[in-house]
């Protein structure tokens, strides 16, 4: 529904600015709105209304037909235009020239235009200039001979309330995040003048109606509270600006507006005293260091092999000189051979299997030991001996191969 959904590339800054504008609308009409959804949720919707009202002003007493209205708002999508027209008609800002059916020409309401002017003014310089206006008006009222003490008390109480709310808001901002404070910093500008005006008004009321001293005390307290709050906020702002070297103390929109509206001389004055040379890349020493250290290496660095955490004991003493195992095997082999050169394996194994398998394992070890002159030779056959201890036997010889 929003006209900006088509060009979704709008920057975050634009969204922020739009959000700030909407914030003003919501604040202003919070007292009037029936529910939170009743206020527009896109600043461009207000632009539609303003375009329409301007066109009505130009059209004069003739009013505008529906097609003319559509033509004026041709740069907005049709559904946005229809929506706005329906709302404006519903609220009475745009109505038929004559209240009868099938009426084709419309006229705009004077009140809505004035209301919109007020909205625009509040949007441009916030509630602060409105406060200036109120103070000036009140000053005139106080000087008016027809003014009664009751009216003066009402005025003073209203002002005291406004100042209190204002200082509460400032205190909240001061205790909040610095970004928010920086964004709302325009609220702090020109506080001295407002304080002066308010105190002058307070003095005028007190001089003319000394019986209002209680009300005036309230007003005075509110004014001083406001002064304290704004000074504290400004101090926090300047503290943070001193440490961050941040140039965004003004809201970004203010910089942008200046850049767009300043004359050429004003813009050039910013750069007085600077000399430019042709743009050249900059090589920071740390960047040079980083470039060399990130360079592709001549040889990839090889990780060192893992080392034990205990000290290296050096070479092992066990060099295979221990002959106990070999001697044992040799004894067993000689015991089995009993001086012969070869024995049949099945004869050797002709005993209970538990002992026979131990002997078979020893014979295999003697066969496999490279330093012992014995070997096992197996034939291809397989004898089945149903009553024997190993129930099948492959005939083979255990023989001496050397001295």
């Amino acid at each position, binding site marked *: 529904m929003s006209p900006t959904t088509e060009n979704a590339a709008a920057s975050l800054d634009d969204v922020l600015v739009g959000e700030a504008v909407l914030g003003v609308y919501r604040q202003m009409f919070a007292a009037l709105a029936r529910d939170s959804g009743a206020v527009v949720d896109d600043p461009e919707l207000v632009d539609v209304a303003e375009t329409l009202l301007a066109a009505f002003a130009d059209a004069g007493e003739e009013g505008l037909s529906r097609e003319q209205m559509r033509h004026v708002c041709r740069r907005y999508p049709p559904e946005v235009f229809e929506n706005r027209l329906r709302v404006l008609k519903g609220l009475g800002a745009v109505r038929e020239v004559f209240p009868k059916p099938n009426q084709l020409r419309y006229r705009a309401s004077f009140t809505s235009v004035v209301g919109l002017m007020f909205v625009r003014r509040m949007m441009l310089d916030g509630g602060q200039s409105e406060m200036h206006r109120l103070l000036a008006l009140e000053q005139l009222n106080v000087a008016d001979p027809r003014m009664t003490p009751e009216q003066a008390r009402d005025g003073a109480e209203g002002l005291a309330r406004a100042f209190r709310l204002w200082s509460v808001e400032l205190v909240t901002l001061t205790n909040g995040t610095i970004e928010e404070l920086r964004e709302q910093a325009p609220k702090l500008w020109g506080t001295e003048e407002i304080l002066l005006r308010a105190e002058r008004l307070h003095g005028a009321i007190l001089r003319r109606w000394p019986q209002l001293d209680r009300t005036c005390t309230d007003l005075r307290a509110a004014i001083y509270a406001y002064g304290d709050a704004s000074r504290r906020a400004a101090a926090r702002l300047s503290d943070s600006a001193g440490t961050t070297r941040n140039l965004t103390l003004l809201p970004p929109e203010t910089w942008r507006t200046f850049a767009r509206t300043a004359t050429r001389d004003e813009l050039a004055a910013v750069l007085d005293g*600077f000399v430019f040379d042709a743009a050249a*890349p900059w090589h920071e020493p740390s960047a040079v260091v980083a470039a060399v250290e990130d360079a592709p290496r001549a040889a990839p660095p090889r990780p060192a092999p893992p080392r034990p955490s205990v000290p290296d004991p050096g070479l092992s003493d066990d060099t295979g000189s221990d002959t106990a195992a070999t001697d044992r095997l040799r004894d067993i082999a000689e015991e089995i051979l009993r001086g012969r050169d070869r024995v049949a394996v099945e004869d050797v194994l002709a005993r209970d299997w538990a002992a026979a398998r131990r002997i078979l394992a020893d014979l295999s070890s003697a066969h496999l030991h490279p330093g012992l002159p014995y070997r096992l030779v197996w034939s291809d056959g397989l004898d089945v001996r149903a009553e024997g201890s190993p129930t099948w036997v492959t005939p083979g010889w255990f023989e001496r191969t050397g001295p």
Partner: protein
Amino acid sequence: MTAGHGGVDPHVLARARARVLGGPSAPAADPVPPGTATAADGDRVWLFPAWPDGATPALLEEYETAPVPLDRAGQARRVLAAALRCCWTRPDDAPWPGSPAAVADVLAVYADMSRGDAGLARRWATGELRRLHDTGWLLLDEPAGIVRPGPRIALWPESSLASLRDLLHRLPQPPSRAGRDGAAGAEGDAR
């Protein structure tokens, strides 16, 4: 002069010359315009813009603003490091003005630093030397085969040089350093 150029504003001419020739160098006797940093070089002086508050363009990174685009930044900086290894012979002094070094030495140091074909590395490094000369980071005298630090190096703040000094110790030695040591020292003293 004005007659020869058809009455062109001399400021425009000077600016055009500066754009074509790089950072302008003026006779040291000339008055220095306000808002410029100078790099003295014998009887000439190089003029550069002075940045506010002692910042350098590296600050752009803090503001996430794109700096002047640079192709193969890593390679250019490695060649610059190789050149400084040869030209910045006394690391306790400032790198500017440094001492002249043979281009062949710089190419050899760069080839030692880099991986792969040494001949290819030399050709790349030659191109980077020319580009660094164009932007004022080195002064390259190609016919004489001599390179020396450029005036832009004088803009490095002293406080940022510690890591660079460390690095240059670790780079390979230029091949003719041993033979030239005495001569380079004598030249540096004469300066």
